[in-house]
């Protein structure tokens, strides 16, 4: 009897750390979940999902997410962890990082503090929270995947219909975060501390495999501050603003952009006509136009629109991104 008892005690002893680990993981997850948001917007056709993931970053309802076609809707619905469905307003976006900040009208919300975000190293265990495949609805918590950081690497992603502008370091993870709807989710360490924003579905251009990655919060934090301060906001013009009689066009500059297939096709340069003003200003294929004069132009459409406000006689200043470089060029039509 005594021997039996000792045996039992040994088993208990042996299993204690395990049980502890489980409990702490469950606790961590339960503290992260209330900060997660499920977003519903545009999509739902041709295999494009109408949902994605996001998380709260202020107690007055600011939400950080990935900038995508899902946000290109008249009404974006944010479903909070407790099941509340609220309409989210676009605060602003940063096309270079492909992030957007939304806001819902609510108070005292559990949230991540971006200032407290941590950085991770390869080998560290992570948890990925997201609304993958849209399986979580209403007050259901988002899905959790576990994994480790496989590598901290430069994003070498394939350019395709869903190309990315971001070219900095990312956390590559071995959890399958690359799923429809997962973009905008949160990557935390095993203690639930925020480390990254789950990126969009992308292929690794070197190995042709799907890439599971998150953008480190450190790379985004300043942009979020700028967006919240109103510095990065898509040009919203006064309806009554006057347009000049003769304005600039892309064709006159000799620029052709990537065709405008999606409502928010990023304005990548597809080709530059030889000897044109653009060629003389050294604009190149694959450059991304970020600003026309002082106005942020996150899409093909907006570049075209913005140019209609500039008189032909005036020069145009473009801010472009080439790889990781930011360049400014001035274009003028020759007399």
């Amino acid at each position, binding site marked *: 009897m005594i021997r039996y008892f000792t045996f039992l005690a040994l088993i208990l002893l042996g299993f204690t750390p395990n049980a502890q*680990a489980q409990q702490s993981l469950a606790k961590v997850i339960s503290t992260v979940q209330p900060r997660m948001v499920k977003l519903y917007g545009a999509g739902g056709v041709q295999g494009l999902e109408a949902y994605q993931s996001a998380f709260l970053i202020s107690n007055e309802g600011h939400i950080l997410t990935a900038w995508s076609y899902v946000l290109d809707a008249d009404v974006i619905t944010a479903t909070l962890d407790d099941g509340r469905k609220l309409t989210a307003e676009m605060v602003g976006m940063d096309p270079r990082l492909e992030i957007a900040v939304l806001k819902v009208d609510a108070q005292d919300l559990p949230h991540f503090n971006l200032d407290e975000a941590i950085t991770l190293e390869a*080998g560290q265990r992570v948890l990925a929270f997201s609304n993958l495949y849209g399986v979580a609805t209403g007050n259901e918590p988002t899905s959790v995947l576990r*994994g480790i950081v496989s590598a901290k690497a*430069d994003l070498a992603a394939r350019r395709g219909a869903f190309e990315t502008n971001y070219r900095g370091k990312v956390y590559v993870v071995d959890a399958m975060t690359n799923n429809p709807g997962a973009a905008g989710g949160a990557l935390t360490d095993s203690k639930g501390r925020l480390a990254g924003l789950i990126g969009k579905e992308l292929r690794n251009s*070197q190995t042709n495999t799907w890439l599971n990655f998150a953008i480190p919060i450190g790379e985004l934090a300043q942009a979020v501050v700028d967006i919240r301060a109103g510095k990065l906001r898509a040009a919203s013009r006064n309806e009554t603003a006057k347009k000049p009689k003769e304005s600039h066009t892309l064709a006159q500059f000799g620029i052709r952009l990537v065709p405008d297939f999606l409502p928010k096709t990023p304005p990548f340069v597809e080709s530059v006509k030889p000897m044109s003003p653009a060629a003389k200003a050294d604009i190149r294929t694959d450059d991304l136009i970020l600003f026309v004069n002082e106005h942020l132009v996150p899409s093909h459409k907006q570049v075209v629109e913005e140019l209609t406000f500039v008189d032909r006689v005036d020069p145009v200043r473009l801010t472009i991104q080439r790889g990781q470089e930011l360049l400014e060029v001035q274009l003028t039509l020759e007399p």
Partner: protein
Amino acid sequence: MTVRQLLPLFAGLLLGWFSATAGAQDDPFEQEEKAITAAAQKVASCVVRIETVGGLEKVGKVFVASGPTTGLIVDADGYIISSAYSFVQKPTSILVTLPSGSRAAATIVARDHARMLVLLKVTTNEKLPTPTAVPRSEMLVGQWTIAVGRTFDATQLSMSAGILSAKERIWSKAIQTDAKISPTNYGGPLVDIQGRVLGVLAPLSPQGGGGELGGAEWYDSGIGFAVPLVDIQRHLSTLKSGKDLYPGLIGISLKPGDIYVLPAEIVAVPPNSPAAKAGLKAGDVITSIDGQPIVRQAQLKHAFGPKYAGEKVKLTVTRKIDNDHKQLDFEAELTDELIPYEHPFFGVLPMRGGGAKGIGVRYVFPGSPAAEMGLNAGDRIVALAGLDVENVAATQQFISSRELGSKLEVKWLRGDEEKNGELKLAKFNADVPQDLPSAVSGDLPQPAEKAATGIVEIKLPEEKNNCLALVPENYHPQVPQGVLVYLPPPGPSDKEKLSLRFKSLAEKNQVIVLVPQSADPKKWDPTESGFIRKALEDLSAHYTIDPTRVASFGAEAGGTMAFLTAAEHRDKFRGVAVAEGSPPARMKAPETDPVNRLAVFLAAAAKSPHKGVLDAAAAKLKESKFPVTEHSLGDAVRSFDANDDAQLFRWLDGLDRF
């Protein structure tokens, strides 16, 4: 849809994550992280980044990775092992980043064709570190595994953690892990929590096929494979000497059926094969290999899986001698290539249906051994080599177990008269006889229930494809029907046209025409061969099928599909007919099989763009001893007319010859 989408790994509140090696500290996760990173770091100096320059962009239909890949140093003299996957594009230049950070050019020394690995050699003065291998006996399913790669960055490792899922996978050639395995770590090591190497990561295919690219579509799915390093080390000296390794072949055919049930009974041993040289014979039952007991065929496959050509194996068999079961020991040296097996020929076409004893002779091939012995159409063969004759399939198999040129005693009935004779089995005859007498004798009783005839629609659960079957009006359940699996051009098939084309030929030759259609109206997909098999099985469940006369047939794209289907399902198809089509681009020439016979019918016009490819295929197949029938479609390209169809059906009608 890729595998990765089917396997979203939800909510991992993982039980049993905690590893005893981490110790019972306050935060087990931190301990785990430290252990994982430490394990990867321990092997880091042996993991090299390999860059390839130049070569093909596309192999078959697959875009091959052009990015860097990973290798594992296995010898201090500059030998590095990696996955063949990364070299399938035949790069013009291979560069390895050594532990010192300098780059060195590498050459491929040898390949392991069984496990899809390559051995590289770099020339360097650097003394290279080598890893510690985990013995197979110490591997535990459920233990930590960390997959390590070096593709993102030359200075940094990439890692993925998981557990050891299984030890004896792909016929014992590999171990399995749920750590994520993809081109980002193929060629890299799978290490245990102490940083010792369990195996080298490679995209092996559980189905066995696919060559260097096989299994790559499983990437990141939670099903990953690694070749045990101890297995690689055992054969490293061979690879280092520049010799490629090939799967070891012995040359036996086992009794067909369920490999998980049947004992390893040999039904045929081609002459000149390692098995024949060792002294094995048809009828022997293998009971052990290298001291490892074998009860079922699957165990035999596991035992042979890791063996290479050139290796010697000890076999114990049970042989029936004079009504006594004797245990006999043999030793065979495995080979990489078997001399093609040639089916011996008796010289008759059998009658079909009817329940009398023996096999009725429908037709005797002129000049054949049967004709020389004096056998006539109308005779009944009742015994061969003193054994009663059962049915056509068993008789075909019995003759397959005999050697070309060997003598065979035959007993037959002519009317009531019993005759005896002896013949010498000759070379197989692929001629298509003209004007054959009917294969069905006498009056058959009226069947109790009339089966559906005419155009029948076959709908299989969970399959998108449509499928039709043309069942002849004179179908009788006692008359086994041949099956022509006609693979029409993609797009919907016109029932009336089908009926018009095949109805009378089907009735005349006792053939059901099965018409599976591609799911995509624009193209056939290679994976649809699985559906075709299912459709054929469904047909056999409802009609009496003659398994010795089942052939796939298609023109152009359908012809390629017919090749592929017959090659993938050798147990079901006895013939493949192709008109103006060609074999799939990457298909290896098949091997003749004593049990699963395959006849080939190739049709092309002289000016056809396919002519050259088909001629080459015909030459190759003949060299491999397949019975090949070539049918000319004249000068200019045209589709099959009524005469061609009749020729095709006569060929099918003669497939049950022996």
